[in-house]
């Protein structure tokens, strides 16, 4: 199997999914790159995860994030989960405010359902989503006493970006969404949980005339979304978000109206794909993953905590059957600065370099090191088996190279490679001669993998 094909496929699956086990990776390579892209952008053609079995293992609302991580690891349509995560980044809604896990998890289910469709449908689903309506107070947005919060963020953070609308547009946008609310007040406790439903309350809706982005009429929220989705600024804004999430790190959203994209041509390509397809995500993603700028962007991003955690779990090959205990990984991403379902603000998580500071790097490294510490895990056993196949007395360089290949394939610079080789050489050649020696060797493989996942390079995906 050609090394470059493997590396290219691993890149695609890190970005469009959450990494692969070695076996999965090789199966994808067999299918061919463009076929895999095709499969990824059409989740409706794939086999969905068996929901009934999941319910058995992930009962209780508190387990939702663990269940989501399980889906990321095991979905046959990983891009669908990745897009749900993408929209969660962009339409950041915090659990801290509603304290209602069902409303928040319903929102993620909605992103999974509509997230690869058309922008207009996505924004409409968002505007009817109870968790969002509560998060940005649209349930308080009534005729005569408008609450501008949703109207403002819809334009500033969810679709157009600062500089593409006026304060009056915000006011009129807010008026158009008056009466868009949900049927049950959240939080609901102490009487238990059930999902709130979107309702439109006619008597709270301001049906008067509104002028919005140059259009005038008695607009309701649907009309506003039609106008937004047709704006060139919307195509640009979403293109840049997709670039930042899937291709290479961009600066944070608030500076977008003053800092140009790092690859303006790439963003333009994506924006054109948006325009020509009427904002169809599946089409734009196909263009993205097949583009040269994407293929050339290996390791051009800092992994988000979710990517780091799922990537490690794929490497060690655990959790491919439903089992309790997934919640610990929800805790792990939180400690790395990404509490799923609870982004810090409506702006979402700051990405790229901002995933890293002293405390966060420490947490990332310590988590990864701990996960690879158990030689009994299937992924580690695979690495050991492949090293054994190299035979006794394999040179330290071969030991290092094989581990790097199986942990990625990863690219490290010569200096890092040098120190890893030094570390490999310090205890002599690998030896599988007898049981004692094998045990000692397994522990050395674990130590090598610990250092690899602790490296700077491993922070990049």
């Amino acid at each position: 199997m050609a090394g470059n094909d493997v590396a290219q496929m691993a890149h695609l699956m890190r970005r469009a999914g959450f990494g692969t086990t070695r076996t999965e990776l090789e199966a994808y390579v067999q299918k061919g790159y463009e076929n895999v892209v095709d499969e990824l952008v059409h989740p409706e053609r794939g086999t969905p995860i068996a929901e009934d079995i999941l319910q058995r293992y992930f009962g209780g609302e508190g387990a939702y994030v663990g269940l989501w991580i399980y889906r990321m690891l095991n979905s046959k349509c990983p891009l669908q989960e990745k897009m749900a995560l993408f929209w969660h980044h962009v339409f950041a809604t915090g659990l801290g405010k509603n304290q209602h896990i069902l409303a928040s998890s319903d929102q993620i289910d909605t992103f999974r359902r509509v997230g690869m469709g058309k922008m207009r449908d996505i924004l409409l689903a968002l505007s009817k989503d109870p968790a969002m309506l509560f998060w940005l107070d649209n349930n308080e947005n009534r005729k005569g006493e408008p609450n501008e919060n949703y109207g403002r963020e819809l334009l500033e953070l969810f679709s157009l970006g600062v500089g593409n609308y006026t304060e009056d547009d915000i006011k009129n946008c807010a008026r158009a969404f008056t009466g868009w609310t949900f049927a049950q007040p959240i939080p609901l406790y102490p009487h238990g949980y059930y999902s709130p439903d979107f309702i439109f309350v006619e008597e709270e809706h301001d049906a008067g005339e509104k002028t919005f982005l140059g259009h005038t009429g008695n607009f309701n929220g649907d009309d506003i979304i039609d106008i937004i989705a047709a704006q060139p600024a919307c195509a640009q804004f979403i293109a840049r978000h997709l670039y930042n999430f899937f291709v290479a790190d961009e600066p944070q959203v608030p500076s977008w109206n003053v800092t140009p994209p790092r690859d303006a041509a790439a963003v333009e390509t994506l924006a054109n794909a948006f325009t020509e397809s009427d904002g169809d995500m599946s089409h734009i993603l196909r263009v993205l993953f097949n583009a040269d700028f994407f293929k050339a962007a290996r390791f051009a991003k800092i992994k988000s905590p979710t990517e780091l955690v799922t990537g490690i779990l794929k490497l060690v090959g655990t959790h491919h059957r439903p089992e309790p205990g997934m919640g610990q990984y929800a805790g792990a991403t939180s400690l790395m600065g990404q509490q799923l379902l609870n982004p810090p603000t409506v702006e979402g998580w700051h990405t790229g370099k901002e995933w890293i500071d002293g405390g966060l790097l420490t947490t990332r490294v310590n988590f990864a090191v701990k996960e690879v510490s158990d030689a009994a895990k299937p992924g580690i056993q695979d690495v050991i088996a492949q090293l054994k196949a190299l035979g006794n007395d394999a040179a330290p360089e071969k030991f290092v190279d094989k581990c790097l290949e199986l942990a990625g394939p990863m690219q490290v610079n010569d200096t890092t490679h040098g120190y890893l080789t030094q570390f490999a050489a310090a205890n002599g050649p690998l030896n599988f001669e007898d049981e004692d020696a094998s045990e000692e060797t397994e522990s050395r493989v674990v130590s090598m993998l610990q250092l690899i996942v602790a490296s700077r390079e491993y922070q990049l995906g």
Partner: protein
Amino acid sequence: MTATPKAPVLVVVQLTGGNDFMNTLIPYTSGIYHDSRPVVRIKAEDVLPTNDTLGWNPHATPLMEMFDAGEVAVVQGIGYPDSNRSHFRAMDIWHTCEPEKIGTEGWVGRIVRELDPRGQNVLTGVSFGQGLPRACALAGTPVTSVGDLDNYGLLTSIGDTSQREQALETFKQMYSSTVGNGIVMDYLSQTGMDVLKGADELQKAPATYTSDVEYPKSSIAKSLRDVARVHLADLGTRVFYAQHGGYDNHANEVPAHPRLLKDLTEAIQAFFTDLRAHHTSEEVVMLVFTEFGRRIRDNASGTDHGTGGGAFIIGDKVKGGLYAEYPSLEPSRWVHGEDLEHTIDFRGIYGTLIEQWMGIDPTPIVNGNFEQIYPFSE
């Protein structure tokens, strides 16, 4: 414990989301206040009056007690011209002192650079909580970010000491390579090396701390206790940063805001009690700030983003009292017909602390000269 005067220490507490200053120090005798806020107003009889026009929210009693003891300078009407109502932009402005363009250098980062230009002590600035706020971000100047003080360090899961040391040695070698692999790799190198340095030092803090002071159970109390533990370990930290979130009370302000004020002010009181018990309270001044106040009128459930916030400067060296002017509630003075007018620029308040407390020239840190107040004794 301390015989010689110590270098001054600044603790910054950020209230994230926009604290409602009008419901913290309340213009309880103003008819306009009560008329504008039929839902979220605090009734005059519930307010704890401090003078004929202003009184404390009853859930901020600890702060009132400290104010009455002369330890709290209230900066009324703090803000800046053309206040921005976006949280992120507003917080960015407070973090970088750049209202007109996007700034990348944080004001706390700049103080740290001034205090320790060669970055010799990675603990000169320490921030508690998840992630480093932009206020502390400054390329080339490490500010240590601590999520969990009690388990701070690298490769802590490797139980065997000699194995861990061997691994740490290789980790150090891999991260110290400075071949010029681009900004991101260099940043990762620098961060990794700073962690190695800081971790060795920070381990001392939980190990040496003892106290009889009980902190309440809240996130802000945990952070302030961590500040106390590191300060008392004498590691050379000059600026601490802590955050308390949840102040964006567009809706349901009535149940939410009092709880926040209670958690915050109880934590602050416990913190200073702790420092006093260790005879170090005169070394520390705290600034409590938020990115903006809320609108004058409520929206029948909460309050929307507004201007004219309030800040607090707290400590034993502080000359307590009310500073600057409480923004006028007269409708003719409302900005955009709905907002309080700010009466003093936040950059002047940073300047006050930087110059009069830390003894540093504030001009390059806050990007200019702004009116200061004089809230320190002696």
